[in-house]
């Protein structure tokens, strides 16, 4: 089942200056030649897809990796090749160290001129020793410098990432980081719990990291939700908060189970009713590899699983519009048991998890869907 909304476009830039010790996304350091070739290949793919499907995109999102590693010229070339609807949201994830040390004001202007209107920056923490523990190179000053560069280019819609449950962190330092976001004028904050992923350096030294325990992490998450609301950032998804009107339209496409095309090595798509992805290999992508089929997308189960990540939740009206039926009765009954434990609200309009519920959302979703 499809909605009339135009799809989003995700572009994966798998390049990083260096690998962060907690990260398990596909990325590596590349030379200039590879970056050029990769850019050319991205543009070629976009043009082919647009020609074949006539697609016009409502949002564009450069994720990574570190898109700023590609350089402003390459990024601008790509943005210009995209068939965008008039008010298209174009987000570029940037690394504060790149912006403060390698980018000039002209670079940022070039990016803004080509159509980029939203920047998401991986700050992770405003506290020095917390940033160091995460292997982040930029200091607080460099983050400030990067913010200045963004604002000077005329882009006032920018987002900062905060990580929760990291070494040395306390509820108080979280509040400090949030205060930094407010002061810098960020319109959006992504605040997510650190998860130790398999195969990362953090996994190997987990015991030595002095990480907060489960209860400590939960406390931090709940405190962050509360403080962010207090500072005017309204929660709209498990890990996302925004000044009203500045929610990430692109990410909302994911949570609303709408379609998006993903271009680039390791990029995932839900497009034309199908899910598919490109292999995690830059050289293969450059040489024109076809995406791998990942089955049908957009089932009711997927919809429920994704919608419940949003504070707006699973609504009867949404279900009716997409699937022609209300939320199934058994699902509401199961939800009402969880309501008794204070994890969500379930009523005639739908099911909405609260922050305590978000903390155990995997279990709730599995419960409602089984």
């Amino acid at each position, binding site marked *: 089942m499809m909605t009339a909304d135009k799809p989003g476009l995700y572009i994966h830039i798998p390049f990083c200056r260096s690998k962060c010790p907690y990260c398990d996304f596909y990325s590596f350091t590349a030379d200039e030649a590879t970056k050029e070739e990769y850019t050319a290949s991205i543009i070629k793919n976009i043009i082919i897809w647009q020609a074949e499907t006539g697609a016009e995109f409502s949002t564009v999102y450069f994720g990574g990796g570190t898109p700023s590693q590609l350089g402003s010229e390459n990024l601008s070339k790509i943005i210009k090749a995209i068939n965008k609807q008039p008010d298209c949201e174009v987000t570029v994830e940037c690394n504060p160290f790149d912006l403060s040390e390698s980018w000039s004001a002209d670079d940022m202007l070039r990016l803004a001129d080509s159509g980029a209107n939203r920047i998401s920056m991986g700050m992770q923490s405003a506290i020095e020793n917390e940033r160091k523990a995460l292997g982040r190179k930029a200091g607080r000053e460099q983050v400030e410098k990067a913010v200045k560069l963004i604002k000077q280019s005329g882009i006032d819609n920018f987002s900062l990432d905060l990580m929760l449950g990291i070494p040395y962190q306390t509820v108080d330092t979280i509040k400090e980081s949030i205060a930094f976001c407010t002061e810098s004028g960020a319109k959006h904050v992504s605040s*997510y*719990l650190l*998860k130790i992923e398999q195969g990362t350096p953090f996994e190997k030294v987990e015991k030595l990291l002095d990480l907060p325990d489960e209860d400590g992490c939960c406390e931090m998450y709940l405190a962050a939700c509360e403080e962010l609301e207090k500072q005017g950032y309204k929660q709209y998804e498990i890990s996302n908060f925004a000044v009203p009107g500045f929610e990430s339209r692109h990410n909302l496409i994911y949570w609303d189970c709408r379609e998006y095309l993903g271009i680039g090595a390791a990029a995932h798509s839900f497009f034309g009713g199908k899910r598919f992805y490109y292999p995690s290999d830059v050289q293969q992508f450059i040489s024109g590899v076809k995406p791998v089929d990942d089955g049908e997308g957009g089932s009711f*189960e997927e919809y429920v699983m994704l919608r419940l990540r949003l504070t707006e939740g699973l609504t009867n009206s949404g279900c009716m519009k997409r699937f022609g039926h209300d939320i199934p009765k058994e699902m509401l009954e199961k939800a009402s048991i969880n309501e008794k*434990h204070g*994890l969500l609200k379930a009523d005639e309009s739908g099911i909405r998890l609260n922050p305590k519920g978000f903390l*155990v959302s*995997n279990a709730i979703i*599995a419960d409602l869907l089984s």
Partner: protein
Amino acid sequence: MSNKKENIRNFSIIAHIDHGKSTLADRLLELTDSVAKRDMTAQLLDNMDLERERGITIKAHAVKLNYKADDGQEYVLNLIDTPGHVDFNYEVSRSLAACDGAILIIDASQGVEAQTLANTYLALDHDLELVPVINKIDLPAADPDRVAAEVEDIIGLDCSEAPRVSAKTGENIEQVLERIVRDIPAPTADENLPLRALIFDSIYDSYRGVIVYVRVMDGKIKAGDTMRMMATGAQFTVVEVGYMRATSLEPTDELTAGEVGYITASIKTVGDARVGDTVTTAENPAAEPLPGYRKVNPMVFCGIYPADGADYESLRDALEKLQLNDAALSYEPETSGALGFGFRCGFLGLLHLEIIQERLEREYNLDLVTTVPSVIYKIHLSDGSIVEIDNPTNYPDPAYITACEEPMTNAHIYAPSDYVGAVMDLCQDRRGVFKDMSYITNGRVDIHYELPLNEIIYDFFDTLKSRTRGYASFDYEISDYQPSKLVKLDVLLNGDIIDALSFIIHSDKAYGRARKIAEKLKDNIPRQMFEIPIQIAIGGKVIARETVKAMRKDVLAKCYGGDITRKKKLLEKQKEGKKRMRQFGTVEVPQEAFMAVLKLDDDS
């Protein structure tokens, strides 16, 4: 082929577990050319996977061998293999009733063990001629002279001519065959009397129906006769009779007195051909059925429930099929608030229980939940009546109970004298009453205790083995009922009684066990969305308490780049996990939690 009675030998092999019974049986098959070499798999008669894996014989098996003896004559040797474990005395007993003699195998290094003796007594009860065979002479630790002396000493069996063999290498096996021919008597039988044939086993064949294995005591039977089961009165027209060969059935015209063979008669319902019944003919019925069988009653009871309620019918069918050749298994439907529809099953002991459970799971592909085993208690009520309780759910209100009795056993433990202390500690711990102790040989003792049955059904044998490094052997028989202080323990999860976890226990042990159960449950119930109090109570009084803390964090915080495949996989895994859980009121309990409570042992 000679069919003369004088040339038939019906015999069994008895031994303590692991003394080499099945291996010897295989050698006999080989030596009599009953099996082509290429068909020879190790332990041919143990044809259940479970038997081969566990190295024990569970079911009796029968096979007809032809042997040309040194005297130049052809003999028919009917071997009826038997299980060796204490739980299966009944199987041994019913096989022995079909025999005229038995080979008693003794391990040349281990000597006389508890079941060597127990099985010897069973054989003597049936007036069988015993042929001692000393096995495993190839082992470095073998000491056949000492073992022979031990057998003469303890059992009083002349071992001067006992074959000393190695079933493993095949050494001296022909001596065993010669001794069978020489020492085991030919059947005394009269084929002119009305037919009386003892059913000692049966199998189900989907084409031919029930195939009954019989020993013909008197008379004869052939295709076309009308057979009648003397206990049930059911009648059938005989389709075929024949002999059991090692790898197939061999039809013949007629089975006559003294012979061992099979009968098919399109018997559809397994209940019509009960093992232990006597077959006669409607044309010329016998007046009295054969005595032969010791009736066995189940001693240990537990509830067996399908993990998936939809499998209830399959479970019933499976139990019905298993009961066909396992008369000691009993079952009747029961309902549990916690587990839904299932069966209350009766077993000879815990091994029997485990084996039935494993067979149900493997051979019938069922996923089961088993409740804590119980024995039969006699409860005296204030109105003067006595009720027998094998299910804790039916335990009366303590206010109306005036006295309780529990079944006791006479237990003999054979162990090297170094372990006397360890064995006695264990028995004391299990509320045992010391009776006496005697030296079997210089270094080995027979420790005799009176032990409550409910103390040995859980894990007594396993604990005994571990405390004596496997050197102890164990045998018991039910003696009588004795007064006891019993209480019923209830398990409450989130305030609801989980009936399937209730059990009856001696009051002195209630507190310790309650604490352990609470701990085990805490360790085995995963955190859920809310805090779960675990309480163990006697009546309304809580005597142990633990808490499963509420789950705090289970979230995929970052779900970027539109890669939802990962999240979908996680969801599938979680849903799969939930399928293995049982819903009790508001609490989900994994099957492992049941098993953990079931396997609760004193050492952990």
